[in-house]
């Protein structure tokens, strides 16, 4: 499903060359649920953004279903994300001036769905995450947990094959965190591939596999039902 082949990412920061990720090679199969853990600055988010076609590597290739992402231009990658990839962010990244319903409608609008169909699908998704009675609430009128649930509904809008989550429980209390992980487990059971960056050991334990990064290098892979190929 997702592959990284000798991917390195370097960038310059105040004149110094910084290596965010170094020679990372991995393969994530369809239906996998991978937790990426490691200290701050270890390259977790870099890896996630690269898998999502948001950050081009300095060297190596990233492939989604056999398609080399960075052989596409930025707009081509955006179109691919629209169809195949969903993002969940630590800070939810909801559009503040839109209601919960409208936030979920955004990916559907981007896919060219008619307004009526957008609304029907968005209502169904918000009901699924337990926010059927909060359709017209703006993010500022929702609790933190409710905001993340809107984000979860939004990520499912276009029925993506891959969900990339960056610290999805980072801003949540333990109970809400549990609900989010349960949600991921549920959609994973439905066949979606999930890659989740997290600092939370309890959340990582719930993944099928855990990938540990340190200093931009994949250092270990902790046991799951499958093994990651670690360079």
């Amino acid at each position, binding site marked *: 499903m997702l592959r990284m082949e000798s991917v390195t990412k370097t960038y310059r920061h105040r004149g110094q060359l910084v290596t965010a990720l170094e020679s990372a090679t991995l393969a994530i199969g369809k239906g996998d649920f991978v937790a990426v853990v490691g200290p701050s600055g270890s390259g977790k988010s870099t890896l996630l*953004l690269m898998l999502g076609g948001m950050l081009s590597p300095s060297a190596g290739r990233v492939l989604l279903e056999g398609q080399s992402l960075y052989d596409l231009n930025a707009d081509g990658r955006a179109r691919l994300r629209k169809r195949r990839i969903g993002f969940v962010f630590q800070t939810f990244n909801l559009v503040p001036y839109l209601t919960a319903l409208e936030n979920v409608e*955004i990916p559907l609008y981007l896919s060219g769905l008619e307004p009526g169909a957008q609304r029907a699908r968005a209502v169904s998704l918000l009901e699924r995450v337990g926010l059927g009675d909060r359709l017209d609430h703006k993010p500022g009128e929702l609790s933190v947990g409710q905001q993340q649930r809107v984000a979860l509904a939004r990520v499912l809008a276009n029925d993506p094959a891959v969900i990339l989550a960056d610290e999805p429980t980072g801003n949540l209390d333990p109970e809400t965190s549990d609900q989010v992980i349960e949600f991921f487990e549920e959609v994973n059971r439905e066949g979606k591939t999930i890659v989740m960056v997290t600092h939370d050991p309890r959340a990582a334990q719930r993944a099928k596999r855990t990938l540990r990064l340190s200093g931009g290098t994949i250092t270990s892979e902790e046991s799951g039902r499958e093994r990651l190929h670690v360079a």
Partner: protein
Amino acid sequence: MRMRTLVLREIFERKSQLLTSLLAILLGITVIVSIKNITFYSEKAVAREMDSLGANVLVLPKSVTLQDYYAADMQGDVIPEEYVTQLAMSDLQGLDNLSPKLSLPVEVRGKKYTLTGILPKSEFQAKAAWRGAGIFSRPIGCGAAAGVPGAGQPEDKRTLVRKRVIDNLDSKEVLVGADVAAALSLKEGDSVELLGQTFGVTAVLPQTGTVDDSRIFAHLHTVQDLSGKGPVINAIEVVGCCQEISNGLVEKINRLLPDAKVVTITQIVESQFKMNQLMSRLSTIFLVIIVLVGGASIANYMYANVFERRREIGTLMALGADSFLVLRIFLLKALLLGLAGGVGGYLLGTALAVAMGPHLAGVRVLPMPILALWAVVISVGLTLAASYFPARRAARLDPCATLQEI
């Protein structure tokens, strides 16, 4: 969800930030529409005024400095009446009517008025020598006097105010200006004593709003006799064909009468034209300033808006929005801003012009729908141009950097 929903929600969410830029555009368009509207009607009024003057060329003594068209004959200097004969006998093309005038100050019942001598057409026609070569044997109709209602019908002497010349006037008859008639309670058929002679009032002239309202018109030769100056006049009003005037009629008259000053009505109202031109130039300068200030304000606002929304833009891109969609979001916002500024500016500017026109320019101003199109085109063009580079910057944002999560 539609793009316009996305754009309108954002506009209303952050309307206070938008207000300054919108005001800059709105105010600018308002002022320009207002100036253009008033100037248009002011120019129209001047044109109408010129048309109503009838005569469009004046022959005056060389020494005269002319300030007021209507008072052209009310200076002390004179030219020989012979000039009228010379003009009438000439082969100049484009002379429609000649109206020589001589004015005297008179006092009637303790009040001062102007007695103006005019020569009726019949005097010209009575001179056989003029009939052959004279201007009245030629077909006329190109001058401003042509087409006057009532032409060809029995003469109504009140048309003097338009035609500047009448067909007949007896030596004991006078025409009385509206103000004189009102002040002296004169009406048609009354008699009035001027410089020791009694005259019958043939007609009371309609109100013109000019010094003619304070005049009493009598036969030129009668006034010459009363003045004791002999066969002289103060001025000759000439109705000339516009086409001939532009083809050098004034120069030809100058050559024929080298000791007289020949001016056209255009020269007389030159100061008004210059004022209108100045207003026009000022409005252009003002437009440039507004475009620059308004444009800078919009561009500044848009850049700030892009910066403020970079995380939102990054999120949209992460969800699959391509750069063209982001560009369109910002340009649609600019378009809506421009439409609001243009339409609002037109409405406010028109209201201002209609309300202030009579006070500022002394003219009645009506709404000009064409200015709505003009206002919207300028406003939308300005906001789109000012927003293009900020919008392009938004479209080129690195979604990864905007999320600031590396």
